[in-house]
């Protein structure tokens, strides 16, 4: 029970000076909440992005040079990938799969609902390379279409549903698994049709872009170089992107943002540390006489040290707990707004930022409480006793 009495001292002292204790705690709360919630937020974002992109890390996307500068309304004059360019790409890609893709947007009608949907045209043998089925089957003939998960939900599409795309009637033969955001294709809110259907309906021979799926992810750079040397010898004919690099840039940016916000949290912890230092110095100065008394009746130096460190720990722990609660609530709210989902909040790699932030808070108060406690412990008992 011995440590109990020193903890009791600390508790009572904090309670006696509750107002100034509260002010110091607020600083810790802000610091812990900032560090933990920013860490949680950043991690959730990274998780959600990497989940959406993980399966496309092995893709190279090739656009015709200039074809990428496609404005929101200017769907007209765009350079495309011609059959000849496609042959070159196939040759440069070796044994890797080359998937030419048609892409546009068109009006769709399902019963009385109508709207605009993205349309992809793929060769039937390429479908299984890029897409996964939730139900139904892949396309075999030009009369069918596949529906992305989101569009299926929106229009209540089932296998067998009828859809009017432009002027053509199509039957849904399969519903796709949700795939998330991608840098090659975004099939979730799209209809997938065959290349034949696409080129006859929209009267388009050339492809909008080409995807090369690399078998071995380490070959990405090699294949990219091969395509570049083959095609962009004199002038730039195509632009070559790999999704892995795009992913890395994005994760990098998130990393920087979260470093920045964590630094802000760090600054508020420094401020909190200064205020804890301050009130602990006050506490020591006010209680010099009391320190003299307890030293004279047999309290050791390190026991006095403990007593004042407990005070700092109480403040830090209290601030850390409240800060953790706040960071969880803030993280929940922000993720709800930004991602419409809080599933990543409950991932261990996200939640770990809460104890992480709390440790920062408690360590800050311990560090700033140490000098005052040391000073209290090393007061000369006689002089402390004479102090009025």
């Amino acid at each position, binding site marked *: *029970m*011995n440590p109990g*009495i020193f903890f009791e*001292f600390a508790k*009572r*002292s904090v309670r*006696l000076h509750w107002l100034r204790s509260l002010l110091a705690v607020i600083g810790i709360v802000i610091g812990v909440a900032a560090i933990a919630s920013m860490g949680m937020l950043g991690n959730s974002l990274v998780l959600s992005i990497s989940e959406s992109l993980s399966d496309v890390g092995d893709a190279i996307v090739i656009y015709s040079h200039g074809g990428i500068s496609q404005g929101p309304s200017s769907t007209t004059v765009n350079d495309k990938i011609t059959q000849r360019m496609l042959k070159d790409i196939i040759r440069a890609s070796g044994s890797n799969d080359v998937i030419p893709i048609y892409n546009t947007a068109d009006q769709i009608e399902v019963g009385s609902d109508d709207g605009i949907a993205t349309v992809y045209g793929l060769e039937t043998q390429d479908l299984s390379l890029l897409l996964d089925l939730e139900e139904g089957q892949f396309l075999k003939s030009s009369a069918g279409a596949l529906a992305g998960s989101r569009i299926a939900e929106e229009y209540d599409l089932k296998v067998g549903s009828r859809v009017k795309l432009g002027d053509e009637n199509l039957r849904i033969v399969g519903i796709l698994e949700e795939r998330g955001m991608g840098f090659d294709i975004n099939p979730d809110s799209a209809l997938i049709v065959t290349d034949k259907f696409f080129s006859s309906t929209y009267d388009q021979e050339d492809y909008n872009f080409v995807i090369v799926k690399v078998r071995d992810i380490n070959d990405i750079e090699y294949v990219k170089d091969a395509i570049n040397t083959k095609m962009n010898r004199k002038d730039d004919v195509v632009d070559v992107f790999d999704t892995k690099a795009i992913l890395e840039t994005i994760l990098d940016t998130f990393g920087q943002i979260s470093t920045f916000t964590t630094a802000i949290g760090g600054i508020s912890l420094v401020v909190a540390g200064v205020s804890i230092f301050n009130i602990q110095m006050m506490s020591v100065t006010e209680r010099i*006489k*009391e320190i003299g*008394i*307890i*030293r*004279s*009746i*047999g*309290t*050791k*130096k390190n*026991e006095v040290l403990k007593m004042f460190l407990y005070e700092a720990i109480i403040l830090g722990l209290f601030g850390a707990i409240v800060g953790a609660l706040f960071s969880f609530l803030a993280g929940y709210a922000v993720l709800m707004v930004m991602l419409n989902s809080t599933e990543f909040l409950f991932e261990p790699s996200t939640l770990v930022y809460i104890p992480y932030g709390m440790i920062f808070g408690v360590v800050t108060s311990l560090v700033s409480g140490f000098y005052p406690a040391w000073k209290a412990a090393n007061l000369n*008992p*006689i002089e402390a*006793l004479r102090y009025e």
Partner: protein
Amino acid sequence: MQIISLEGVSKIYPMPFGEVVALNNVSLTIEEGDFIAIMGPSGSGKSTLLNMVGSLDVPTEGKLYINGVDVGTLSDDELTDLRRDTIGFIFQQFNLIPLLTVRENVEYPYILKYRKRDTAGRCDELLKCMGLTENLSHHKPNELSGGQQQRVAIARALVNDPKILLCDEPTGNLDSKTGTQVMELLKNLNGKGKTIIMVTHDTQIAEYAKRTITIADGEIQ
């Protein structure tokens, strides 16, 4: 049996404008069970002597033995243990701990020594012996009168059953009636074998002691 012995003890405070000699070559032996009053003018070194005997301070020169131990050889922690186990302090200003209740004040040195709370009822018994009622024990010290506070302080000084009681003007802040009560308590304790050393300005108070030592300018007269 000698419980305290000073051999040529000096205490010198180095100050910016020269040294202050608070005690000058003091030699003194005190037998167990003695009751000593120390008198002398202000600034003569009475408190310095008492603090030294209380192992709050160590001599600059000379040897001081408390309970057979040469305090000059002890570390700060060992001096603290000596204070906790063999010495009880009673101060003019009572010096109770404001954060603790009356009972907790008495219990505090007990917890320091035994590392556990007093479950044997020693504190309550001591408070009762000091004439303090049960319902006072949950009050904070500042809710008590001076006489009551001093009696709590005596109970606290006694809780670890020390051999020596050191009192620096124990009645200095009390009226003569309560002062007399406190002195009766001390006399009683001395009768039970406690060695008491008491600093006082009051000759009437000094009469409770078995012998009186007078100090002037840091020297025993």
